[in-house]
């Protein structure tokens, strides 16, 4: 503060260098901002990656042979979760074996628990053959079709497959929403 300010008018003209300096600063600033910003935004967008195909074993096919037409809740820790998810990763799917006589694709029907309305967990009532949602009164028939209430579509169905070891596997369901269903053929 005590040093005398040099009088700019008496200083040699440095127009070109000043401009160079200014533009270099702008450029360096832009590069720095991009160097920090691009990876950061990329990190934030990380959850949008789509490489989640994990299969969950539900047991040997023979276990279902005696349960033709019955709807059972199977629960398992969802492999799509994090190691620190604890019980929050515990997922349930409703599995029904429809019998061997059908086309192979219809032997099993597996529903996600989440209501198609706003995601609450539906309950299966075998005596009336209905799935009921506890939250806003959505009701579905055994086929998964919406019977009444606010759901805009039927229950979300899960992909399944029979392995070579003749075991039933279900594709681990992500949280299903109207535009992000669990089977490619369900996309509207």
């Amino acid at each position: 503060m005590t040093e005398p300010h040099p009088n700019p008018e008496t200083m040699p003209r440095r127009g070109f260098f000043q401009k160079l300096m200014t533009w270099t600063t702008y450029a360096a600033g832009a590069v720095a901002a991009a160097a920090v910003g691009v990876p950061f935004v990329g990190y934030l967008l990380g959850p949008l990656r789509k490489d989640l195909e994990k299969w969950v074993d539900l047991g040997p096919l023979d276990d279902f042979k005696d349960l033709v037409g019955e709807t059972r809740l199977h629960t398992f820790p969802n492999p799509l979760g994090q190691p620190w998810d604890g019980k929050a990763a515990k997922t349930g799917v409703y599995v029904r074996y429809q019998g061997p006589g059908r086309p192979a694709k219809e032997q099993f029907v597996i529903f996600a628990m989440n209501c198609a309305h706003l995601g609450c967990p539906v309950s299966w009532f075998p005596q009336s053959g209905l799935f009921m949602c506890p939250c806003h009164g959505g009701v579905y028939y055994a086929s998964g079709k919406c019977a009444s209430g606010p759901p805009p579509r039927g229950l979300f169905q899960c992909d399944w497959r029979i392995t070579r070891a003749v075991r039933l596997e279900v594709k681990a369901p992500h949280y299903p929403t109207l535009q992000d269903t669990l089977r490619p053929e369900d996309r509207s």
Partner: protein
Amino acid sequence: MKRLLKALGGWFDARLGVRETILPMLKHPVPARVAGPMGWWYVFGSASMTLLLIQILTGIGLALVYVPAPDNAYSSLLSLNHDVPLGWFLRALHYYAGSGMVVLVLIHMTQVFLHGAYKYPRELTWVVGVFLLLCVLGMFFSGQVLRWDPDAYWGLAVGGSMAGRVPWVGPWVVGLLLGGPIIGGDALSRFFALHVFVIPGVLLLLLAVHLWLVLKCGISAPPVPGQIVDPKTYDVEYKKEVEKGVPFLGDAMMKDALFSALAAIAVVALAAWLGPVGPSALPVPSETGANPRPEWPFLWLFGLLSLSPPAAETFIILVFPLLLIVGLLAVPFVSNRGERSPRRRPMAVLAVVVIYAVLGALTYQGATAPWSPHMTAWSGAPVPEDVVRRSNPVELRGAVVFQYKDCRNCHALEGQGGRRGPDLTDVGRRLTRDQLIDQVSNGTPGGGLMPAYGKQVSDAEMAALTDFLVSLRPPGQPPARSTTEPQTARKEP
């Protein structure tokens, strides 16, 4: 000693310059009447800020123990409630001071609206205030998620499903909101970051701007009927007004301080009296049964949804709140001049009355909405004895069908059971046998509230069920008859 302190203070002030900068701000002149009884209208903003301080303090305290991961969030909350000394108190205070903040911010906003204080030149102060309100509400929602219980978990699911309805980009919005393919640790961490870093950061920044605007534009004088705001002349008039004014550091500040202290004492008393809220249980998504209701500041929207047809839902969820926000932001631009006194602005007063009446009614609806079926009523709520005391065997069989087919989950008998559908205690007086068969078989026409039971009950079950339903009427009352039915209606069995 005193001299030493003074010298020390002087040493710091010479470097910090508090007396040059901060002190004049505190002493900024306010209209003289703010120091009088009218000044009590001006205390709500600073009281909200006092509660914000409590929130920061208790929030830091809670963060010392809380674990933002699903496997331990619930147990760390239980530990706060039961093990950590005064942990229960901090949790309770954080909840009630937060609730108090919402209340005070709303009162503050209402006062500013009624007194026309948002008009020229304080439009921007109002706009920033609207965003501050959004921050406070955002804190409330994100805070509820951290209380990792089934309400929080399924509330998050509802939020995710709502986000999934955004046209075209829905799945991406869901992905960014939940942070992962399922609702778990990623979602909780993100709401923790929102609640602890992002929203508070934005809130404090906006608050600084809000306060700066209050200093820069000055506190509006208490409104006087007939005193018109005209942007051309207002600045000169206001300058004159504050020339006769008093410094804020004085009576005006005293009122603020007293009311702030009372507000703080009130939330502390509430916290000590009512204790912490939740967590109700550990959320396990594979367990059926959930009935998430949002926290009280959002119950009105929940109530509105429960009253609306499903077709209107997406609009109410995604567009309506945006319209409300735009409406609030537009207030000072729609009317930034003219009368300020509520006595000369009957429409403004009416708007406030109507808005609060609607919000109150919707909140009540939200708190009591019979939206949810009673999932255990089919087995947990037996048919009341006096309903079947004089039933014949077929009607008794019908009562069993009624229970077994889960009708009770949505239909109450004598007030017991679900309230999703109507109470059927005297349905025999209202609907004829044919109407009942039609209703049960086909459900509500056009995809209403009742599912079609046609394929779910056998002919014998249907006959018994309708016998039972027809018998549901007060003693001595004849069954309902259709006007198109011949007078010699078929005899009651």
